[in-house]
C-alpha cells in the first residue's frame, strides 16, 4: 500500500480524504493536525460563539471515523519541514516520516495588519476552537469589545460577542461593510441592520495602536482618536499557509499553485483548501474547497480526468435577522456590465443583479435572500436571461420548493458547505431508504453545515418520499384531523370559544382524551378568560386540582416558592397530615413537600387548613422554581438566586402551559439547583445572568440553550417571561420546551423573543400580563366549586340493602 500523508486536519483536508476513501482503499493514510481537536466544522464556530451550538455539536468526524477507516491520526503535531527528494515530512515532535504521496491542506492564518500592541492580553483572532473558547470566557455584560474588520468573519464575531452580553463596536478600514461582497448601497443597508441589532459600526478607521499596559485598554486610530476596549478581536482577513510549499520548493504565489487536476509543481505533492491558488485565485469559503477535493481525490487515486474549473464565490452572512447574500461579479463600473437594482429602505431590502452578455454575472441581496438559490443556478449555468428581463428581481411568486427542486439538475450542488449534489441526496434516499431530514443529514452530510439548504433538502425528501409530507403534518388526533398549528389558527380566526364548538365544526363532535385537553388549553390560551370553560374536556387532575394516584386517591403539593418554607408552614403541614391520616409525606424532587394518598372529598379542607396556594403539581402549567442559596448564605454566590427565583415563581405561577414548565435559578455556574436542565433557567455570574431555556432531565436529558446574557435581574426575569409567553403561544400541547426549541431552532426563538422588535416584545408581555391578571390559585375553588359535586362523593337518595 502506498503511504499518503495529509498535513492539516481541517475542513478541506479531511473532506478530500473522505472522497479518496470513496475511490479505493489503496492508501495507508496518516493525518497530521496542529490543532488538538478531531475534524470539526469551522464555519459553525460563529454559531458556537453566538451560543447556538455547543462545541461538541460541531464535530464532523469523531475518533471512531478515523479508526474505522484505518487512518492514523496525529493531533497536536505541527509539520515543520518537507524533503521532496527523500520524500519525508518532519514534525515538531521530532519525527520524520516517509510518504509516497503528500497532501497539503494547511488552510490559512489570520492576517494581523501592521499596528502596535497586537500581542497584548485580551487581543484575539477568530479562527479555531481555542480562539472561540477564549472569547466565550471573556465576553460578558459590561465588557467593551472591539472587532477590527467589518467583513463576514468580523461581523459574525461581533454578533456572537454581543449575544454574550458584550458592548460591541466594529471598526472597519473601508467605507462600507463587507466591501468584497457588497457595493456601497448594499453596505449601507447592512450597516443599518447591524446597528439596529445594537452593534456600533465605525467606518474608514485605520487602527494604529492597541493601547494598554499588558492588557488591552483601548485602540488608537490613525486620525488620533481613541476608543475604550477590554477585548479586541482581529478579523482583518486571512493569509494562506504557504511556508511548507516554499520549503518543498513548490511554485508558490499568494497560495501554493495547483493546476486543473489539483497537482502542484511536484508530481507527488498535492494541495487543497485555503492554502492553494488556482488560476490566480485563493478561496476563503468551503464550497470551492469541496469541489477541489473531489477533483483531487480522482487525480491522486489514479483516476486523473475530472478537472477543477474554478468556483463562483457565494457568501452568506450567518447572523440571524440580517440576511445578506452575495455571489459572482458585482462590480458594474466595468465596461459591458450593467446592473438592475431594487431598494426599499423601510423594508431594509436591497437587491442588485449584474448582467453581462444577457447572462447573470453577480448578485447582491440584503434583507431578502429568498431567491438566492435561483440566482446561484443562473450564475452557474449561464442561463440566457433576455426573455425574463422584466422579472429578474422578483423571479416568480413565493418559491415553491416542489417545482424548484424538480428543475435542479442532478449534478447541481445543493449543500455548498458539504459539497453534496442533488444526485448524491436522491441516490442516498433511494439506496438507504431515508425518510427524515435527520437521516439525510447523517447519511450525506447535506444541511449539516450552515443550514441554508435545509429547505431544499426537505423539498427533495418531499419529492422523492411521499410519506415525508405526512411526517411533517402531524394531526392532533383522528377526532379533529388538523395540525395543532392549524387548530390554533382556526380557534383564533373563527372565534371558537369552547372545546365543543371546535369539535362540532371541525371534528367528529365527540373528541377524546387526547384532543379534549389540548383544545381546552388552546381555547383558554387564545381567549384568555373570554371563553366558555368546559371542565369535562379536562383530565381529572385538572378538574380537582390534584394528581390522581394508582388507587384513585390524590396527592397534594402546595406551592413552596423557590423551595423556601418556614416553621409555621411546616407545622401546618404536619398538623394537616396527622388530622387527615395522610399516608405519606414526601420531599419531592422539586424542592417541596407532597402529601400522598388523600381522598378526593378531603381535598378542599386540607387546602384550607394548609393555607398555602396550589403548587400545580398535577397539571400542564407552572410547576416550580428550584433555587440554590446563592448570595444569601453561600460563599460562592454571585447573585441572589433565592429572591430572583421566588420573584420568577410569583410572576408565572397559576398559569397554564402546553406541558409542564419547570424552572431553576442558581447563584453561580456550579448550578446546585440544576437550572441548566430546566425548561427555563437563570444562571448567575459575576455581574450578569445567563437565561437558558429548553433544558430537561426527565425522559430525555438535554442541556438548556443560552437565550441571552443580561446584566440585571429585572432584565433576566423579562427574558424568561418573553420566552415563557412565546412557548405558551407557539408550542403544541404536550410539547415540552426541550422539543419546542429543537423544533423551532434557537435562532428563531431568540429572534422572536429577546431580539424581537420592541413592539413585539411588549405585545408578548402584555398578553402574559393579561393572562396572569385573570389567573388565580386553583385551590380557591374549595370555597366556590364550579359544580356542586366537584369534590363531594355522591350519596344515594335512598339506601337499600344489597
Amino acid at each position: 500500500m502506498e503511504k499518503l500523508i495529509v498535513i492539516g486536519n481541517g475542513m478541506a483536508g479531511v473532506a478530500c480524504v473522505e472522497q479518496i476513501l470513496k475511490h479505493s482503499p489503496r492508501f495507508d493514510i496518516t493525518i497530521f493536525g496542529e490543532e488538538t481537536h478531531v475534524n470539526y466544522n469551522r464555519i459553525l464556530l460563529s454559531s458556537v460563539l453566538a451560543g447556538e451550538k455547543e462545541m461538541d455539536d460541531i464535530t464532523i468526524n469523531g475518533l471512531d471515523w478515523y479508526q474505522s477507516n484505518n487512518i492514523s491520526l496525529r493531533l497536536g503535531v505541527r509539520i515543520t519541514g518537507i524533503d521532496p527528494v527523500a520524500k519525508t515530512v518532519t514534525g515538531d515532535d521530532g519525527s520524520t516520516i516517509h510518504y509516497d504521496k503528500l497532501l497539503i491542506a494547511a488552510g490559512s492564518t489570520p492576517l494581523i495588519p501592521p499596528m502596535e500592541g497586537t500581542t497584548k492580553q485580551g487581543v484575539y483572532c477568530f479562527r479555531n476552537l481555542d480562539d472561540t473558547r477564549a472569547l466565550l470566557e471573556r465576553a460578558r455584560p459590561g465588557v467593551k469589545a472591539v472587532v477590527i474588520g467589518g467583513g463576514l468573519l468580523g461581523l459574525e464575531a461581533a454578533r456572537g460577542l454581543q449575544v454574550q452580553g458584550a458592548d460591541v463596536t466594529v471598526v472597519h478600514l473601508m467605507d462600507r461593510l463587507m466591501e468584497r461582497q457588497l457595493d456601497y448601497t448594499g453596505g449601507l443597508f447592512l450597516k443599518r441592520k447591524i446597528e439596529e441589532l445594537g452593534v456600533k459600526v465605525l467606518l474608514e478607521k485605520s487602527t494604529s495602536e492597541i493601547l494598554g499596559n499588558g492588557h488591552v485598554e483601548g485602540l488608537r486610530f490613525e486620525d488620533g482618536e481613541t476608543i475604550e476596549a477590554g477585548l479586541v478581536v482581529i478579523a482583518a482577513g486571512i493569509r494562506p499557509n504557504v511556508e511548507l510549499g516554499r520549503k518543498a520548493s513548490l511554485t508558490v504565489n499568494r497560495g501554493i499553485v495547483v493546476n486543473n487536476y489539483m497537482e502542484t509543481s511536484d508530481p507527488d505533492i498535492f494541495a487543497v483548501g485555503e492554502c492553494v491558488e488556482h488560476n490566480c485565485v485563493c478561496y476563503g469559503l468551503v464550497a470551492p474547497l469541496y469541489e477541489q477535493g473531489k477533483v483531487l481525490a480522482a487525480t491522486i487515486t489514479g483516476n486523473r480526468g475530472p478537472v477543477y474549473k474554478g468556483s463562483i464565490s457565494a457568501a452568506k452572512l450567518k447572523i440571524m435577522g440580517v440576511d445578506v447574500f452575495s455571489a459572482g461579479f458585482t462590480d458594474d463600473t466595468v465596461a459591458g456590465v450593467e446592473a438592475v437594482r431594487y431598494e426599499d429602505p423601510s423594508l431594509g431590502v436591497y437587491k442588485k443583479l449584474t448582467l453581462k452578455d444577457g447572462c447573470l454575472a453577480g448578485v447582491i441581496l440584503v434583507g431578502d435572500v429568498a431567491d438566492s438559490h435561483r440566482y446561484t443556478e443562473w450564475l452557474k449555468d449561464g442561463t440566457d436571461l433576455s426573455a425574463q428581463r422584466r422579472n429578474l428581481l422578483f423571479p416568480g411568486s413565493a418559491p415553491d420548493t416542489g417545482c424548484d427542486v424538480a428543475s435542479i439538475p442532478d449534478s447541481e450542488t445543493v449543500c455548498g458547505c458539504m459539497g453534496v449534489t442533488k444526485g448524491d441526496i436522491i441516490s442516498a434516499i433511494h439506496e438507504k431508504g431515508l425518510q427524515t431530514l435527520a437521516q439525510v443529514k447523517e447519511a450525506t452530510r447535506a444541511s449539516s453545515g450552515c443550514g441554508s439548504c435545509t429547505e431544499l433538502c426537505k423539498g427533495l425528501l418531499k419529492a422523492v418520499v411521499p410519506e415525508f409530507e405526512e411526517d411533517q403534518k402531524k394531526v392532533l388526533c383522528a377526532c379533529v384531523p388538523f395540525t395543532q398549528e392549524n387548530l390554533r389558527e382556526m380557534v383564533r380566526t373563527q372565534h371558537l370559544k369552547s372545546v365543543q364548538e371546535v369539535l362540532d365544526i371541525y371534528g367528529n363532535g365527540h373528541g377524546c382524551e387526547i384532543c379534549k385537553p389540548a383544545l381546552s388549553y388552546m381555547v383558554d390560551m387564545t381567549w384568555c378568560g373570554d371563553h366558555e370553560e368546559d371542565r369535562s374536556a379536562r383530565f381529572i387532575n385538572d378538574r380537582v386540582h390534584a394528581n390522581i394516584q394508582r388507587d384513585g386517591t390524590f396527592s397534594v403539593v402546595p406551592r413552596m416558592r423557590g423551595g423556601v418554607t418556614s416553621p409555621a408552614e411546616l407545622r401546618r403541614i404536619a398538623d394537616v397530615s396527622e388530622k387527615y391520616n395522610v399516608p405519606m409525606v414526601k420531599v419531592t424532587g422539586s424542592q417541596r413537600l407532597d402529601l400522598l394518598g388523600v381522598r378526593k372529598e378531603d381535598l378542599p379542607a386540607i387546602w384550607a387548613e394548609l393555607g398555602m396556594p396550589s403548587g400545580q403539581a398535577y397539571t400542564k402549567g407552572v410547576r416550580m422554581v428550584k433555587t440554590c442559596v446563592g448570595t444569601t448564605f453561600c460563599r460562592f454566590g454571585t447573585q441572589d438566586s433565592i429572591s430572583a427565583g421566588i420573584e420568577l415563581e410569583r410572576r408565572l405561577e397559576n398559569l397554564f402551559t402546553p406541558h409542564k414548565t419547570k424552572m431553576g435559578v442558581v447563584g453561580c455556574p456550579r448550578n446546585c439547583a440544576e437550572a441548566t436542565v430546566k425548561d427555563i433557567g437563570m444562571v448567575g455570574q459575576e455581574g450578569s445572568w445567563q437565561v437558558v431555556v429548553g433544558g430537561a432531565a426527565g425522559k430525555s436529558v438535554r442541556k438548556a440553550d443560552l437565550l441571552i446574557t443580561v446584566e440585571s435581574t429585572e432584565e433576566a426575569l423579562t427574558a424568561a417571561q418573553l420566552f415563557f409567553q412565546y412557548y405558551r403561544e407557539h408550542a403544541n400541547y404536550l410539547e415540552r420546551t426541550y422539543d419546542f426549541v429543537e423544533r423551532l431552532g434557537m435562532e428563531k426563538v431568540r429572534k422572536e423573543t429577546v431580539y424581537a422588535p420592541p413592539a413585539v416584545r411588549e405585545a408578548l408581555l402584555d398578553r402574559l400580563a393579561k393572562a396572569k391578571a385573570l389567573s388565580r390559585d386553583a385551590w380557591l375553588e374549595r370555597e366556590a366549586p364550579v359544580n356542586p359535586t366537584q369534590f363531594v362523593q355522591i350519596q344515594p337518595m335512598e339506601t337499600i340493602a344489597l
Partner: protein
Amino acid sequence: MKWIKITETSNIPKREGRSVKVGSHEIAIFNLGDRFLAIQNSCPHGGGPLADGIVSGNSVVCPLHGWKTCLESGEVQRPKDLQSCVRRYPVKVEEGVVLVQIEATAKGRETQERMCTA
C-alpha cells in the same frame, strides 16, 4: 326489579361522570347530554376509577392508563380484541332524578338489558 333513586341530574355535569356507592356496588354514572348511562366504577385493567375518566362519545377513557370502555355495551374497546367487559346498570331519569337498577344476580352483559332515558 326496583329502581333506586340516586341523585338530582344537576349533580352530574354534562359529559362527566360521578361515582356512587350503593350497598356493595360502586357505580359510575355518566351524563351524555341526551341520556345517562351507568357502569361499574372499576376499570378491568387495574381498578381505575372510571367515573373520573374523560368521556369520548359514548365511551369513557380510564384516568390511570387509558383503557377505553364503551358505556353502552360495557365492552373494553382499547386495547382491542380483549373480550373484557364491565358491568352495566340500567338507568332512567324521572322528575329530574337519576335512578339505577341493580339486578341481584347479574352475570354479565347478556343478561342485561339496555335502558336509556331522555
